[in-house]
């Protein structure tokens, strides 16, 4: 059941990932990217990480992609279907070929690592994924968390100052 589901989701993920780079219209590419993110979220669910899945959809599909879609819309990029660039094809195919070899090599030679650390899969299921992330974030990783919040605050203040013409 799970394998079948995985196969379907993977098919959708690959097709939409190809559409991201092959669509002529940038908005359609952005929509395909949303679909890809959605499939990634499904993988997180299958890996027993439901919190990550929800965050993936909320942050990437819900917030960042909306921003990207907005930018594309407001820039009003013209769809230029007639122009064809060929000079980048050679370099692109060489890079693509070596990336393919690299990936195949990694897949064949690598081995699946066992999860390490204090939390095993069973434990995560028992205690709850969200609870564990919350606990770790607000005890062991409190300082990085606080630093990130200050960074975000600075970013917000900066954005307000940039947007406001006179203070």
């Amino acid at each position, binding site marked *: 059941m799970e394998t079948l589901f995985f196969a379907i989701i993977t098919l959708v993920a690959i097709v939409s990932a190809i559409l991201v780079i092959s669509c002529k219209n940038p908005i359609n590419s952005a929509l395909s990217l949303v679909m890809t993110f959605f499939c990634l979220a499904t993988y997180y669910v299958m890996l027993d990480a439901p919190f990550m899945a929800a965050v993936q959809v909320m942050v990437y599909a819900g917030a960042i992609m909306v921003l990207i879609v907005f930018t594309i819309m407001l820039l009003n990029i013209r769809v230029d279907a007639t122009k064809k660039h060929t000079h980048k094809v050679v370099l692109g195919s060489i890079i693509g070929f070596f990336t393919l070899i690299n990936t195949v090599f990694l897949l064949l030679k690598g081995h699946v690592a066992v999860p390490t650390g204090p939390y095993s899969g069973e434990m995560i299921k028992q205690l709850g994924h*969200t609870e564990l992330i919350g606990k770790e974030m607000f005890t062991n990783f409190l300082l990085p968390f606080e630093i990130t919040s200050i960074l975000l605050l600075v970013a917000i203040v900066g954005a307000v100052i940039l947007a406001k013409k006179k203070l």
Partner: protein
Amino acid sequence: MGIEILGLPMMYYIAMVAKVLVAFIFVLLTVAYATYAERKIIGHMQVRLGPMRTGWHGLLQPIADGVKLFFKEEIVPSQASTFAFLIAPLIALIPAFITFAVIPFGGVIEVAGYKIPLQIASYIDVASGKVYDVNVGVLYILAMSSLGVYGIVLAGWASNSKYSLLGGLRASAQMISYELSAGLAIVSVFMLSGTLSLNEIVTQQSAMGGFGWYVFKQPLAAFMFFICSLAEINRTPFDLPEAETELVSGFCTEYSSMKYAMFFMAEYANMVTVCALTATLFLGGWNGPLTAEVPLLGPVYFVAKVYILMFVCMWIRATLPRYRYDQLMHLGWKVLLPLSLLNIVATGIIGYFIN
């Protein structure tokens, strides 16, 4: 349990399909008759009769409307981006429906010796009798509602019309602003419940015979969540994206036939979802007297609460005028957002001293 498919009893699949169908048909019928109820209720509030001609007191009006929209001509503007234009109504409609997968609409009922929890995405552990559901249910709902914004933005942009674009821009700015406050408003509920699973939240509210409902512990959060949700689904008094006096019909100006009907359905389906979520989070979900003895009363209470909240939505529409755009942004960012943050801080402090 008889035949097994892929390690699960046959009854599991039957129950699952039945639950999905029941929830889907319930939402569809409610959406259809919400349009009728809205016209009728607003009509009577304004001392009119509302629809009267089709059937007894206009009861067949939704069917007539549906048939009419179905047979209208399908128009795609020549300068529109076809793919985005065609897919936008679907993107608006689907998140509204799939949210229902995690909302519990009843307790555990027993059919032919097999226990079925009345929530689509859930299963029951036969040995311990404990119901397991999606343990990030609320986050799932927030995630789905953040996807709903694409439908409206795309519709506005793809139509290639200035009214649609303005409507789409307004809608997205409004939805993003109020999504934030709605999300922060329910954080205080998690602080009390300690879980994100909707089933657990409902179970916790069953204590103290109705006074355990979170609306009594978190009245401000309940109020703010309802307001923000109204704004997020573009209902009056926040229906600026389709303000017909200034923007023709907003983002759906260029739409016709079934695609227009889909936006309409999405709006009402969103209303059902929001009311169901408010009922689940703050009004005790399917809790009520005698649910332990007669489990089938659970769905009845749940539906009653949803319908009462929907009536409130319609009542608001008949009563309040539309907000101005700057007032809307002011309310969202300068009133509701600080209030929801303060509410979280206050809940934290009070919770610390009580425990």
